[in-house]
């Protein structure tokens, strides 16, 4: 039943209704189980958690549409969180610290894209390695005990009771919705956006059409690291403390959000609009699972199994006999 619905999400369009239905159904279902869930406060907290995941998952979506994967997102999140808190704590102006972090992240991401496309090595291995290098570097520099502070306004941006001007939503949520709209428009209306889809759909044809493959790879991974850094800075405001490992959960939740949204890992299809719904579903699901008494590792098992199950229902390879 579920599988049949999922297989309909394959195309670029369509299937959104099912996702929206699932997202709202989950919310209402959880509300029925957990008293007090059906309130503005809990809705805001779901949106806030989803926004942090959603910003981190922008890069995961773009790199997956390109036919890759970015496993260095947690490391970049940790790097950004620790660096921005530490520099601000040392008296740097926040803007300067944030710009430095962002620039470093963009460079790091571009390197990921360059190495993966230049060597034709699966980006999963490249980003696994580069992520490990980055995380090791933060830990080495901070000796594993980072400290620092963040400006109050940043904490307010990621506070459940925060307001953005007249809008009764925290700044992070508003920023996410604006970014999401921008990304969805750029995916469809910008030149690099179309290249992204074309290369992901058929890299060989892209080579024949002489599209700038390497530049698009570098751009996608740079954007991915950039938004991961943004997520890391917001997390610094969220937790108020610096912890290099803060990004760890985002390794699989970003992949799961993309896959649950219906973007296949084979590339060239889907998009960020789906991931937005995927993030909401994951956040609600996590809340529900916690409400049902499932702990963190239990959620990991659940999401891992879900990824394999969903991938197995679409994005399969062709049979060997047809390739001989």
């Amino acid at each position, binding site marked *: 039943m579920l599988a049949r619905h999922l297989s309909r999400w394959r195309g670029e369009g369509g299937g959104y209704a099912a996702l929206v239905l699932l997202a709202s159904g989950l919310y209402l279902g959880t509300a029925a189980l957990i008293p007090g869930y059906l309130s503005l406060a809990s809705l805001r907290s779901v949106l806030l958690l989803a926004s942090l995941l959603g910003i981190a998952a922008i890069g995961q979506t773009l790199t997956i549409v390109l036919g890759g994967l970015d496993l260095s997102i947690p490391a970049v999140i940790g790097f950004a969180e620790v660096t921005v808190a530490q520099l601000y704590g040392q008296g740097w102006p926040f803007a300067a610290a944030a710009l430095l972090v962002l620039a470093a992240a963009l460079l790091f991401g571009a390197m990921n894209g360059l190495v993966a496309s230049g060597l034709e*090595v699966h980006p999963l291995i*490249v980003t*696994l390695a580069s992520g490990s290098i980055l995380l*090791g570097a933060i*830990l*080495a520099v901070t000796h594993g005990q980072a400290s620092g502070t963040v400006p109050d306004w940043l904490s307010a941006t990621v506070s459940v009771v925060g307001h953005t001007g007249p809008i009764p939503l925290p700044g992070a949520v508003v920023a996410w919705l604006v970014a999401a709209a921008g990304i969805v428009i750029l995916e469809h209306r910008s030149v690099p956006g179309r290249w992204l889809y074309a290369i992901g759909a058929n890299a060989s044809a892209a080579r024949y059409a002489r599209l700038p493959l390497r530049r698009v790879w570098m751009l996608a991974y740079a954007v991915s690291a950039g938004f991961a850094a943004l997520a890391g800075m917001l997390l610094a405001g969220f937790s108020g403390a610096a912890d290099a490992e803060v990004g760890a959960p985002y390794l*699989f939740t970003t*992949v799961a959000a993309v896959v649950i949204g219906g973007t296949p890992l084979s590339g060239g299809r889907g998009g960020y609009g789906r991931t937005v719904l995927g993030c909401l579903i994951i956040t609600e699901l996590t809340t529900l699972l916690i409400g049902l008494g499932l702990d963190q590792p239990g959620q990991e098992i*659940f999401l891992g199994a879900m990824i394999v199950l969903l991938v*197995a229902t679409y994005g399969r390879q062709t049979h060997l006999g047809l390739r001989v």
Partner: protein
Amino acid sequence: MMVALRQRAYAVPVLVTVALLLAVNAALNRSFVSPDNWAPILAGATPFIVTALAQAAPILAGGGGIDLSVGPLAGLVNAILVAVLVPRGLDGPLPMIGAALALGALSGLLNGAIVCMLRVQPIIATLGSFLVYQGLTLEVLPTAGGSAPAWLRAASGRVGWIPGPLLLLLVLAAAWLALGVTAYRRNLLAVGGDERAAYAAGIDVAAVRIIAYVIAGMLAAVAGLAFTAVLGSADPSVGVPYTLTSVAGAALGGLSLAGGRGGMLGAAAGGALLFLVQNLLTLAQVSIFYLQIATGLILLAAVAINAVSDLRRRRSTAAA
């Protein structure tokens, strides 16, 4: 004899590097060569070597083969042995080794079936099992603790007069040589080298690949046993990093990530090389965090060398 040498020519660079690193280690630290230290040094190297061996089988099988779940599976075995079997009194060699190997084989069968039957890309299928095992490990064992039975801890020292880890490696080498007597090793290299040629020649490609994942799972379980012996306890975070080192070790060992080229000797040497580098860094009293950086850099360097030599080989065959 000549044939045996020629078949292993791919491993010469890594073996030479390992010899050099051994010499450097010995020069910097006299006690490195003293026979008393052999057992602990080998015990430290064993997880690196065995996980690299585990990774080697699916990589050799080609078709983008890789098993990311090697590290978490080793960690899961460690957790289950200490936190499930020991408290229930099942701490004899037979139930523990049997359970570990059965768990490994089952995991390999699952991974292999998802890759070969459901035709999911290996890298994604095993990323899924990576997450599941990581979660299961934390379910079974939320924090480090417990203790391994005495016989297992003693095995990391000496068994009779030979170091226990050396005995383990000899057993694995014997098993691999025994596989060489069967048709499997040839089939594995054939499937990895050119799956179309292998299929057309009448080899059951899917079966060969599934068995490669079973070998990977069982070797990862052996690595889990080795952790348990060395640590003397269990730690839920011990396994995961070995996925990274296993891929790096196999790539350093001269195996082509495209499959079909290389063998277990190279992978073992690649794993040993990683251990020796870490040992050197530890000797130099570098912070543990630099080890992580070094491992990442070595992995990147290894895949880069691998990719370049694959490219060069492709060009030279295209010209022929």
